[in-house]
């Protein structure tokens, strides 16, 4: 059995990696991947608490797992739109370097 705190520390490490990636990378796809890593950290935290819900709450059910599934579906939708936006930005600017996209109009 892996203790609960180990899962939570693992999620925190994923969050650190994702946050560092978002703050340092300039490539649009790398930023997107880092955001996905951070989202996975939140999903792992959610599943961890859901897996121990019978010890934490009076009523235990599979709601936590289902919320994580919803989160994964939302992430899939987000990635589809974000990749399309990056494609449009590449057509307009010829680059997906996010540091060069500091204008809200062009």
């Amino acid at each position, binding site marked *: 059995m892996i203790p*609960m705190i180990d899962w939570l520390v693992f999620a925190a490490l994923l969050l650190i990696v994702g946050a560092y990636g978002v703050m340092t990378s300039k490539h649009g796809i790398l930023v997107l991947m880092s955001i996905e890593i951070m989202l996975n950290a939140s999903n792992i935290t959610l599943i961890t608490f859901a897996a121990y819900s019978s010890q934490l709450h009076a009523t235990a059910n599979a709601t936590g797992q289902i919320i994580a599934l919803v989160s994964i579906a*939302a992430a899939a939708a987000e990635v589809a739109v974000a990749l399309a936006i990056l494609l449009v930005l590449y057509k307009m600017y010829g680059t997906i370097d996010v540091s060069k996209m500091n204008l809200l109009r062009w």
Partner: protein
Amino acid sequence: MNLSKLFAAASALLLGALMIITFMQVSLPVADPDATNNTQIGQALFGTAQDPGFSPLMIMIAIMLLVALLGAVFLAKEDKEGEQ
């Protein structure tokens, strides 16, 4: 390593440390996790004859994914010649 990357690393570490410290404040259970199986998750997701479960939510997710797909296709489609 330049100063901005060092600052980013320090910020990320601070964020992670904050998360771990927050978890350390709570007395977490030391026991085996619940034996939630796929049947329970499936029944909760798609419902049973008596209980609809989260099936309306699943339909909403399906619609959201369809809209996201259509939006992505609309954004990524090639412009026709002479079109703005």
